[in-house]
């Protein structure tokens, strides 16, 4: 794989029907790094995240205007098939959502079976192991791969979802508050995993937890809204260290210090 290009977002406006939810986002997301998005509830950070793999538009009436270049290709080009975008930009959700009727094994391989139809048994086993290892879950589940995915603990389920996502070998992994429903130990396990994953993937993570943002991310973006009913804006994005010590905008400083103080 050639050195990946940054994700370039230009003039992105995000709508729910007539309502403009996020206005005028212009940002570059660095490849092979972790970018955290923080901000108050309702500021549009999750909405923005979902536009990066065109998941936003699966909500009836929702759409986005603007350009998002991934690997030099605008994913909002009318000729682009959103299905192909999602195969390259994976997503981990707030609540672990393994497929309820599938075993651990089938959960991990579900995406691959969609994308490349047939898979030889040997290749499938290899991919299963490497994906589960990649999600730091292999040792815990290797003896019960045929048990239902729902039988795992919450933290394990979330790592199963990560394994399922990386099994399709995406370039980018989007995470929408992946630890918000987890206990501190499971959270730590996922944060460690995010650290390892940035060797191979571009990661964008939405989080409510600012300590988490400072622990896992290289760069942090701050979203804010002027008030309910107003659109959200990306206030600033910079190196995480600078954002948390010396942000350029007062809003950012207020938000960060308010939460810490």
């Amino acid at each position, binding site marked *: 794989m050639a050195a990946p290009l940054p994700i370039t977002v230009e003039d992105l406006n995000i709508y729910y029907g007539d309502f403009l939810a996020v206005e005028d986002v212009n940002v570059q997301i660095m490849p092979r790094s972790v970018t955290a998005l923080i901000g108050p509830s309702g500021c549009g950070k999750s909405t923005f995240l979902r536009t990066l*793999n065109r*998941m936003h538009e*699966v909500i*009836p009436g929702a759409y986005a205007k603007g350009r998002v270049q991934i690997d030099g290709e605008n994913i909002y080009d009318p000729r682009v098939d959103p*299905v*192909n975008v*999602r*195969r390259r930009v*994976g*997503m981990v*959700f707030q*609540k672990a*959502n*393994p*497929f*309820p*009727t*599938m*075993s651990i094994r089938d959960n991990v391989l*579900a*995406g691959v079976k*969609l*994308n490349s139809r047939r898979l030889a048994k040997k290749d499938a086993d290899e991919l299963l192991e490497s994906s589960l290892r990649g999600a730091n879950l292999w040792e815990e589940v290797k003896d019960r791969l045929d048990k*239902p995915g*729902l*039988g795992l603990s919450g933290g394990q389920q979330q790592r199963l*979802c990560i394994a*399922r*996502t990386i099994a*399709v070998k995406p370039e980018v992994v989007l995470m929408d508050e992946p630890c918000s429903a987890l206990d501190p130990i499971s959270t730590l396990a996922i944060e460690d995993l995010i650290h390892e994953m940035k060797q191979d993937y571009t990661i964008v993570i939405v989080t409510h937890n600012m300590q988490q943002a400072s622990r896992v991310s290289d760069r942090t973006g701050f979203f804010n809204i002027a008030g309910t009913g107003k659109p959200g804006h990306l206030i600033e994005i910079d190196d995480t260290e600078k954002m948390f010590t010396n942000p350029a905008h007062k809003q950012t400083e207020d938000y960060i210090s308010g939460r810490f103080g």
Partner: protein
Amino acid sequence: MSTTDVTPEAAEAPTGSMKRSGRRFGDSVFSNLSIGSGLLIFLTLAAVAIFLTLEAWPAIRASQEFEGTAEFSLIEYTAPYVFGTVLAAVIALIMAIPISMLIALFISHYAPRKMAQGLGYMIDLLAAVPSVVYGLWGGIWLVPRLEPLYMFLNSTFGTWPRWPGFLPWVGGEPVVALFAGDPTAPMRNLASASVVLAVMVLPIITAIAREVFLQTPRLTEEAALALGATKWEVIKTVVLPFGRSGVVAASMLGLGRALGETMAVLMILAPGATFSWHILEVGRHQSIAANIASRQAEASGVDMSLLIFTGLVLFVLTFIINAIARAIVARSGPKS
């Protein structure tokens, strides 16, 4: 205070003693009423079962007396009707289930919201049409229009392909025996009855299937979408597996309806009492329910008892189907 547990009743009373003052009147009335209603179901079912067994007893006795003679056999009398009932119902389901699934998926996942609503109403309306009306429609309008289709099926699949002659049992017989035989107009055959039964069970299965498909967790569907699933792949990997037990339950409910349906079958089918697989032939089949309805007015004595015995068989059959449905639903629910 003599009591330490704080009950809601106690919290409501702002003044006076907080001691329990017996059960509240409204509470006890309501709980007794609901317990009584629950018991009523049980009693009704028991009453029906007891009635059927008692009234069928003379026929069972008579059958035992004449056992081994050709004069009277309970089994011989009942079996063809059981065969006809089950065959008609199963064929109806084979037609209705796939169409119901497609309609339900269309309503739950493809149709725009307005259209889905309208279609939902229409399905419910279809379920509310009385069976006499279906009987009239089937017998007068549908039967003649099905004739060309039957002739086509009969001439195309009725004789060909055939099993190789050396095979036991089926040697030389057409592979698709269902369409073989000699259909004659008017086509008041089992196939026509099954088509009308299919129309009647369609709304039941569709309505339930739609409900279970709509209950697929949004998050699970999004998981599949985020992996790069197309709409059909979402349905295949998430919606159908999730709804499987509901669909089975719906089908069994439809089967129950088809087994017991009387009027439409009575008005369409020209009766007969054979074990023929030739569903296009007229005067070969009859269902238990339609047989009872057509004969009970003139029956008395042992004849009546005999009809009631067939009713008992239908009752038990429906019971078994329900038990199987429950077992399947319990087994194929979401794994956890």
